[in-house]
């Protein structure tokens, strides 16, 4: 009688929310045509794109970023009165219109971090590496997808935030044709893209979302102030401008302050940070056990 429990035809699992598995083995149902089966970099990119787009949280986060950039920019712009005599960056109408970036960079950094740490947390990384054991294409594909999506979303958002902000400022506002304005608007989208990649790199290095997000936060928001306290004034002059956030400010302000790098050098230094962090990530990803 013991076999009755195991009898496939016995209706013992009626409440289970799954179908009855197919009886035949996969071999007898015809084998997959194996011609053309191979791992290629474009295919790994497609795989990473499927992973990114299939998580609703990614899209909600991006939507929140867009609304944050446009909304904060609009609020700041509405409350802003231009004062040409004030040399502070936040007295510039362009900076005010794009002030939502300050918050958006953290959110975008988190998107980059989670793109890899979530796989380490839930074990998906093992399926990923079993499919692509060389591993490096996975990091490359993730970087391209994250960078592509971030830039594609950020660029129109920056233009939108700028135009809405300037409309709200009214008299004394800036125009896209003014000197350096186009560089700032496009550069701001580029900055967010770089931050997403820094997040991906730090997430790969640290493997844990909490610590990687912590490092992003310190690196982008706290480091300039902290080092300002810790370093002697002479060293501040030399080093602070090379921090990622200050390198970004060099091309995200119309008139970079004297203690910042030139816009071009700022972009080069920020790109250096991205390449450096992703480079360390690539080496560790290859070496470590998954």
């Amino acid at each position, binding site marked *: 009688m013991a076999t009755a429990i195991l009898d496939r035809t016995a209706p013992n699992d009626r409440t289970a929310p799954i179908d009855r598995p197919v009886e035949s*083995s996969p071999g007898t149902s015809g084998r*997959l045509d194996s011609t053309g089966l191979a791992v290629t970099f474009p295919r790994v990119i497609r*795989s990473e794109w499927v992973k990114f787009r299939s998580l609703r949280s990614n899209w909600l986060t991006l939507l929140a970023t867009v609304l944050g950039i446009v909304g904060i920019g609009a609020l700041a712009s509405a409350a802003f009165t231009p004062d040409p005599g004030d040399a502070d960056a936040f007295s510039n109408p362009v900076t005010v219109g794009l002030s939502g970036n300050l918050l958006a960079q953290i959110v975008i950094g988190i998107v980059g971090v989670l793109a890899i740490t979530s796989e380490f947390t*839930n074990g998906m990384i093992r399926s990923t590496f079993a*499919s692509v054991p060389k591993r490096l294409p996975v990091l490359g594909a993730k970087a391209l997808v994250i960078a592509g999506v971030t830039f594609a979303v950020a660029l129109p958002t920056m233009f939108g935030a700028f135009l809405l902000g300037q409309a709200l400022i009214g008299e004394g506002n800036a125009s896209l044709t003014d000197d350096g304005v186009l560089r700032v608007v496009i550069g701001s989208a580029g900055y967010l893209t770089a931050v997403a990649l820094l997040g991906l790199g730090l997430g790969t290095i640290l493997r844990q979302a909490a610590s990687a997000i912590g490092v992003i936060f310190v690196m982008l928001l706290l480091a300039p102030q902290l080092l300002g306290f810790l370093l002697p004034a002479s060293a501040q002059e030399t080093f602070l401008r090379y921090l990622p956030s200050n390198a970004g400010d060099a091309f995200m302000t119309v008139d970079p302050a004297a203690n910042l790098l030139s816009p071009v050098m700022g972009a080069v230094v920020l790109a250096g940070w991205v390449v450096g962090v992703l480079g360390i990530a690539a080496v560790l990803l290859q070496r470590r056990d998954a």
Partner: protein
Amino acid sequence: MIVVDSLSKHYGPHVAVDSLSFTVQPGVVTGFLGPNGSGKSTTMRVIMGLDRPTSGTATVNGRSLADHRAPLHEVGALLEARAIHPGRSAYDHLSAMAATTGVPDRRVREVLDLVGLSSVAKKRAGSFSLGMGQRLGIAGALLADPDTIILDEPVNGLDPEGILWIRHLLKGLADDGRTVFVSSHLISEMGLMAEHLIVIGRGRLIRDMTVDELRQVGRDGRVDVTTPYPADLTRVLLGQGVSIQSTDDAYTLTVTGLLAAEIGDRAVAQGIPLHALVPREASLEEAFMSLTHDSVEYQPAAAA
């Protein structure tokens, strides 16, 4: 075919796998058996290229996994249940894996059908039970129609029907000529599922044997014999090296030190009828314990 050659894996001072060598042949289901912590999962991770060996090699069809054009088509693996983002659907999860190797979407639907998850394919995997997660993992292992299948503790979390289904599935895959390598710490399950066994303990190979050979290990030389004249039979059998115990049943004796054939022959010679003559087998569990009891990783400390 999987070839593991002098494989060692150390984690700091801890030796997880120690000079392990074995070959897993196609065409039969091979069980990978050992107590918890004996190095089964580590060995499987090294075969899958997830952990780097400290020394030695593990190859599938002659190469390490990374050297194959389509690794997913060479080896399909289930290494842990629910290794999936809880916010992603079963379909998207498999679809992302399939994309890396150019496996068509039609095949994704096929394997979802095969494991019985078609009706929940679009649901978030976070809502899946352990058994459903296990089925999804098996779907992933079969996705690119691999020649070699590696499953780590596949029956965990499955209901009896699911366990039976896995047995049939693995048998079918082996009958196709594929290499099927399945780990478990449950010998009884292995006895039903596998034909061949790789037994390890503390990271070392203990036996490379068939399940039938393990059953032989389990024979302990005791024979149960039932007769209406137990006193007469006892007198006939007793001798040097022979011990006889009575049992709860007054007509059944347990004899040690004689083969069943010898007992039968002597009984016939004396005209004593026998109603039953049964060589006793230890259970597979007992056989397994006798093989591995020296190599259990975490034994209770002996009283000093």
